[in-house]
């Protein structure tokens, strides 16, 4: 009986949610809501790879799973504990990549990177995962959240970062004792690819402007090639404005006048810096979600990469970023009604301001916040 009631409830939620999607997305939808409500759909479940990550990652993932469970999301997780600082417990890289390739979507916490290398290898586990899956584009959508106090308001910019080459090539050597050379690799092919990604993102999301962040005045060849590739691709998009800005100026502009930015496209290291500045502007690492794309797969992870290992086991971390990642994942796999439900619940909790974690100036615990979100699901 309880089984029946549960399933019936779920069907009702799905059907009403589907109607909501139709009316929200398309004002002059062809198929009426009544018609769509009359259809019952066999349940299909999505499988998603889950990497809890280091630091507070596992706690945040637990919070995410609680919310998913409460919202009845038809998503199953394939969990891999994957870690570089905990090598004995870590799953193998091949297993993880195989799972992500199969499921096409992944939710990932942040992996801690040790300052030394045990094996002498220069590539970190994070970089290996990215190169194996060819996750070349990292997208962080930085948006001011309701109820979060910050210096600037109405920030809405997207930072697109190339993350498979540039400074993160893991090619370093000590040619003469005391002299270390570190190679930064820029290729025309990958630069054109990330530039096209940025412009296609802008086209798809009705954005007006793409800013290329570079340092071509100093690195005339490397960053010069990146800039030139962006310029060439921009010619294919006559209806989107293209701008270029030097990275040092960009950082200053970001903290003084962030509202001028729309979509930004950057090479690897600048992207990491700009990401962190922008996240800081809207409330810190705990509230901004990001995603990494390859042609085939998509990995959702928090926008600024901090493990927050000081807070492990203290029930302090802010789960907002991870929950937003989950909401973005749901949207990506065509479960938009669930995504909207979770996003609006988070917004309501933040707006009310009764439950705030420490990073936002409150005293609430991770659990308090999670249950507040669950209470606001409808």
């Amino acid at each position, binding site marked *: 009986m309880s089984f029946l009631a549960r399933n019936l409830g779920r069907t009702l939620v799905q059907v009403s949610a589907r109607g909501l999607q*139709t009316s929200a*997305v*398309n004002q002059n*939808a*062809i*198929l009426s809501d009544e*018609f*769509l409500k009359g*259809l*019952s*759909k*066999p*349940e*299909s479940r*999505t499988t998603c790879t889950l990497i809890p990550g280091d630091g507070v990652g596992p706690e945040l993932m637990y919070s995410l799973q609680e919310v998913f469970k409460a919202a009845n999301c038809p998503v199953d997780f394939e969990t891999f504990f994957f870690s570089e600082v905990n090598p004995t417990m870590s799953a193998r890289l091949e297993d993880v990549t195989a799972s992500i390739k199969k499921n*096409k*979507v992944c939710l990932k916490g942040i992996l801690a990177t040790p300052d030394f290398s045990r094996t002498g290898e220069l590539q970190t586990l994070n970089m290996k995962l990215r190169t194996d899956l060819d996750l070349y*584009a990292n997208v962080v959508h930085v948006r001011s959240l309701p109820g979060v106090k910050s210096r600037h308001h109405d920030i809405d910019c997207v930072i697109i970062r190339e993350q498979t080459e540039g400074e993160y090539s893991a090619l370093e050597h000590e040619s003469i004792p005391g002299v270390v050379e570190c190679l930064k690799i820029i290729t*025309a*092919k990958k630069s*054109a*690819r990330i530039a*096209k*990604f940025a*412009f*296609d*993102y802008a*086209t*798809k999301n009705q954005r007006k402007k793409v800013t290329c962040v570079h340092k071509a005045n100093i690195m005339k060849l490397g960053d010069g090639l990146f800039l*030139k*590739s962006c310029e*060439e691709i921009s*010619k*294919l*998009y*006559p*209806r989107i404005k293209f701008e270029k800005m030097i990275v040092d100026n960009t950082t200053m502009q970001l903290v003084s006048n962030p509202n001028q930015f729309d979509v930004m496209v950057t090479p690897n290291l600048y992207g990491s810096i700009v990401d962190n500045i922008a996240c800081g502007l809207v409330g810190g690492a705990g509230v901004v979600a990001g*995603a990494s*794309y*390859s*042609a*085939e*797969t*998509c990995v959702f992870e928090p926008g600024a990469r901090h493990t927050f290992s000081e807070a492990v086991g203290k029930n302090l971390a802010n789960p907002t970023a991870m929950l937003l990642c989950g909401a973005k994942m749901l949207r*990506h*796999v*065509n*479960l938009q009604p669930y995504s909207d439900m979770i996003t609006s619940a988070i917004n309501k909790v933040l707006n009310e301001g009764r439950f705030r974690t420490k990073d936002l100036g409150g005293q609430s615990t991770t659990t308090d916040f999670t249950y507040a979100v669950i209470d606001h699901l409808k």
Partner: protein
Amino acid sequence: MALRLARFTKDIIRPTFIRSLSTKEESLYDIQHKQPLQKRLTAIPNAQYGGRHAVTMLPGGGIGPELMNYVREIFRYCGVPVDFEIIDIDPNSEGNDDLEYAITSIKRNGVAIKGNIETKSEQTDTISRNVALRNELDLFVNVLECKSYPGIISRHQNIDIVIVRQNTEGEYAMLEHEQSVPGVVESMKVVTDENSERVARYAFEYAKNTGRSRVTTVHKANIMKLSDGLFLETSRRVAKDYPDIKHNDMIIDNCCMQLVSNPHQFEVMNMTNLYGTIVSNVICGIAGGAGLLSGKNYGDHYAIFEPGTRNTGTAIAGKNIANPVAMLNASIDMLYHLGHKHHADAIADAVYKTVCEDRIHTPDLGGSHTSLDVIQNIVRRLSEKTIHW
């Protein structure tokens, strides 16, 4: 035309890697005249991100916009991972800004789905936008798979013919002039060895890959001994590379008669541009009308999918009686092309069942249902399936 070509190639030629390798930069003239037919292109990265594709959508005129809305509705219902970039081309405008933007967009996305685009202007310097699109993108082959639906009453049953048509030259070369003597107009038909070979090879490869045993080349080489002669000769030469596939040829007038009296003798047909448009309309007519079949245009780099016969259907626009099946079939072709087999199979099955089992037919097939009835029934059929995103 040559001017237009030169202007477009200026933007896309000169790939950076070639430029950096060669010491001296080639002029536009050199590039254009070394290989006058095949435009050299830089490979633009694919528009596929996180498993989702971006596709250009050109609704065109007449019933195009409403049919595209149906396609989008069905795609949204079953969660097809495709994002459309919709570009409207104003049929009344004289300029070609929208068209140029559409062409740029297809170059970026690689794939497009389109209705028929009207060109209302009758000025001699405004070229047909459909033709311009094919020429600029070098979509040298048009493929029309004619398979009759068992549930539809038509003159012939069990037709299964594939028409492979040259799409960029022949009579559509758009070289006409009245300069020689007043009252005398000359129109040029251009047939080239290179393009004829590309089409013939496509036809034979298609036959080989789909297990068909015969290719028929349609021509009029008894009259146009040089131009159609070249086309025929080229296809005979290509046929020698495919000893397992039978090759025969047929004169266009005889071919039309054979088609309406005994269409079952044909398997794959290979022909020039104008004959192609005639033959495909004949076959659509005998297999159940313009509202069912879809056509595909392929080039080396791009693909455009559209309804099989290029009619705008302005007369029935907005009356909710247009047959949405042709456009849906075009969208299914597109999904197969993009590799979304799972979704394509589901939609194709729903469409087939709607037409053949539920017999929800619009007036052009002799039914009395509206377009919306067809779409609702397809969605109902789709709702029976479990579709992963």
